[in-house]
């Protein structure tokens, strides 16, 4: 079936929904395609909060927020983007409140705020209360609120439509083509639909499932990134992948930084608050990359609990009231998944793969960049975790992802509305869906080959071991090589389910293909970057090297070879790079 509309939004997480809402308010006919029911999107998992310098409890300024973002990103953040983020965060959070979001309240009835890692006053002096929150369900409330407002605005949703290809007019993105639509696979019955539009937004979230220990949902397979990458769009800064310090031991489920924001401490086997040795001022509230590295080093030096590969997060001293009122969900996770009672005992934690700083490169209006020179792909937009603006630079601060969704999701919607006005629908061939149709048919009908699970298991183990918190040339070159092999094996993969009705086997196997693409870009970009910056820590190059590496990586896909890597300078407006200490 073929459907014409003005704008297409792929995904229904926070970024996508705000864009869709903006488009609806502008009266643009929009189709929102999502492979999950919107409220199942992973934005709902975000716990801790969304930062905005409201100053409801203590003095705060957007400049401080901007500074923290840039410094937290180890000066790789584009400062024009960080400025937009910090300024507009305030308006967006207020707007969310006007949409009905049930924030926690101060005694005066204002939005309550709390501390979060890396957020400081006076340019790094001391922690500041900046994270606006709704218990530890902030993401859930944002997702619900935006979806509710979309229903109110009459947004058209195509639920459980899995986008499998992007369409262009006049050649792929690298050939100067213009985005023309998407091909989507309706999960319920396997029917393929072609959607045509003047503007397409990719807001498909991250790719944390490339790792084994991860906080990410099964569905986070880098779909949007990989689909764009295959159509000639580069991927920016893929080597910067965040490991969150406090994943539930063995499973990776996240225990929010809010636990530390409220005063929770990290302990090693000697019961020592080891962060004192790594970040004496901010302690547990140092940025995530530093805390994760500190934990990794503690474990490597044999100070893990019982000498094993985990440490303790202790909140028991915070008292029942704080724990039950402000941290209800994470206490629940500890009880359910570990059988640990956080009111009394410390919780076993280990770093967990969490967030992609990199992704599809965009400008400040969420328009997708074609290459490192800043040329645009007409009609194509990206926002949210799938995109790289880049505000987060080499390391994202806690809560800044939600801010990113709100600020740049809205900007995407605004820019798209502008874009579609007056323009004509692109031309696409009647059989534009043929290539992906053929791919899917081949996968569905292939008789012999390898099951995807073994490949998936090998990939995730490989990423854990070789593309983790600490890296070096040996690890990374092995990773690059092995991922190449896995990609070859993937070309011969078979599925067990050959039906058309709700064939998750088929789609999950396709997702594995997306993950392999993202993993390859990540490993290759990491191998090339010979310095340590933010979340990218090379043991063979332990220092940051601004002279050579103050630049964004752009990885271009090549069919049977390693990606082509090129570099783009960082935008620096207010804050000159300085050593990063906390």
């Amino acid at each position: 079936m073929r459907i014409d509309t003005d704008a297409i939004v792929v995904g229904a997480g926070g970024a996508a929904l705000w864009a869709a809402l903006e488009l609806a308010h502008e009266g643009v006919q929009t189709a929102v395609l999502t492979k999950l029911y919107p409220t199942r999107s992973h934005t709902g998992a975000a716990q801790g909060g969304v930062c905005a310098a409201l100053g409801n409890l203590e003095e705060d300024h957007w400049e401080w927020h901007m500074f923290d973002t840039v410094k937290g990103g180890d000066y790789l953040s584009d400062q024009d983007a960080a400025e937009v983020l910090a300024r507009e965060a305030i308006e967006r959070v207020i707007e969310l409140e006007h949409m009905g979001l049930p924030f926690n309240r101060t005694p005066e009835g204002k939005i309550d705020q709390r501390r979060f890692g890396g957020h400081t006053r006076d340019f790094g002096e001391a922690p500041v209360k900046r994270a606006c929150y709704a218990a530890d369900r902030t993401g859930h409330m944002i997702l619900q609120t935006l979806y509710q407002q979309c229903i109110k605005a009459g947004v058209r949703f195509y639920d459980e439509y899995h986008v499998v290809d992007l369409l262009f007019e006049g050649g792929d993105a690298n050939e100067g083509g213009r985005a023309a639509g998407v091909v989507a696979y309706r999960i319920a019955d396997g029917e393929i639909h072609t959607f045509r539009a003047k503007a397409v937004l990719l807001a498909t979230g991250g790719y944390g499932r490339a790792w084994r220990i991860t906080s990410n949902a099964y569905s986070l397979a880098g779909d949007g990134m990989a689909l764009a990458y295959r159509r000639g769009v580069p991927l920016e800064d893929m080597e910067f992948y965040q490991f969150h310090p406090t994943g539930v031991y063995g499973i990776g489920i996240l225990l929010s930084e809010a636990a530390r924001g409220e005063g929770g401490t990290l302990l090693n086997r000697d019961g020592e608050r080891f962060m004192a040795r790594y970040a004496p001022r901010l302690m547990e509230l140092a940025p995530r990359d530093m805390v994760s590295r500190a934990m990794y080093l503690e474990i490597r030096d044999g100070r893990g609990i019982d000498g094993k590969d985990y440490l303790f997060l202790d909140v028991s001293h915070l008292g029942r009231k704080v724990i039950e009122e402000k941290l209800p969900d994470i206490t629940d996770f500890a009880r359910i998944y570990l059988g640990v009672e956080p009111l009394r005992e410390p919780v076993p934690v280990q770093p967990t793969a969490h967030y992609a700083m990199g992704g599809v490169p965009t400008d400040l209006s969420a328009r997708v960049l074609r290459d490192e020179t800043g040329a645009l792909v007409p009609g194509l937009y990206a926002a949210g975790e799938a995109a790289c603006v880049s505000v987060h630079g080499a390391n994202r601060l806690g809560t800044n992802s939600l801010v990113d969704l709100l600020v740049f999701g809205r900007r995407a919607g605004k820019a798209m509305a502008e874009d579609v006005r007056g323009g004509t629908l692109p031309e696409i061939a009647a059989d534009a869906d043929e290539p992906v149709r053929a791919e899917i048919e081949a996968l569905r009908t292939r008789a012999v080959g390898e099951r995807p699970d073994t490949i998936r298991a090998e990939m995730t183990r490989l990423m854990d071991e070789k593309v983790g918190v600490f890296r070096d040339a040996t690890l990374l070159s092995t990773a690059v090589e092995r991922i190449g092999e896995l990609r070859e094996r993937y070309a011969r993969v078979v599925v067990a389910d050959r039906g058309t009705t709700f064939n998750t086997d088929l789609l999950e196997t396709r997702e594995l293909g997306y993950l392999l693409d993202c993993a390859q870009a990540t490993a290759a970009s990491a191998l090339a970057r010979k310095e340590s910056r933010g979340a990218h820590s090379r043991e063979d190059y332990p220092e940051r090297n601004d002279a050579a590496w103050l630049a964004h990586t752009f990885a271009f896909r090549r069919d049977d070879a390693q990606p082509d890597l090129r570099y783009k300078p960082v935008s620096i407006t207010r804050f000159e790079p300085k050593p990063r200490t906390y």
Partner: protein
Amino acid sequence: MQVDLRILRYDPERDAAPHWESYSVDAAPRDRVLNLLQSVKDLQDGSLTFRRSCAHGICGSDAMLINGRNRLACRIRVEQLGRKVSVAPLGGLPVVKDLVVEMEGFFEKYRSVMPFFVNDTPTPARERRQSAKDRERYDDTTKCILCAACTTSCPSFWAQPSYVGPAAIVQAHRFIFDSRDTAAEDRLEILADDDGVWKCRTTFNCVTACPREINVTGAILEVTRAIVARHG
């Protein structure tokens, strides 16, 4: 340990009717039912079909009938169930395939209760104020993840699929009791419909089913009382 897992399977392209299949699965006590299903899918039968995403009880994808009760497969540990585990799709909704049910009707009911904030008065420059007490008033029902475990555990819903169901009422409750919202009257009117709150028989299955531990019946009765009060 070895778990004896029974799954009610159905593939419309192959089977005339749903049927039970047994699998023996190797599991650790802390494994969740979702791990068991994933293990069957990975190692025994790749065509086993179920929804899941977040794997930790916040997205609401994997509500199913486990050992006779609706629960999230990702939140119930094997050790809580014992060696015999049976899994079937949610009741009262059409089965699409295996453990996947058609959710559209459920979401349609959700949408029918105006599940969105309404306040058309001019927006202030800053946030609207709300006291912590007023915020607390509707806290419980903001937690809902639309997993449908409640509605599909309700005998009244099984009997009358037109019943709007506990989940939709919970969602309406969240706004009706929000001091900032101005459309409570409209929602009360919608829920005073024949298929509204009256069909609740206080069976409390929804409360035991809810993975978010929402006092669903309490919320329904609060709405009922508000409707009754509204009519004097």
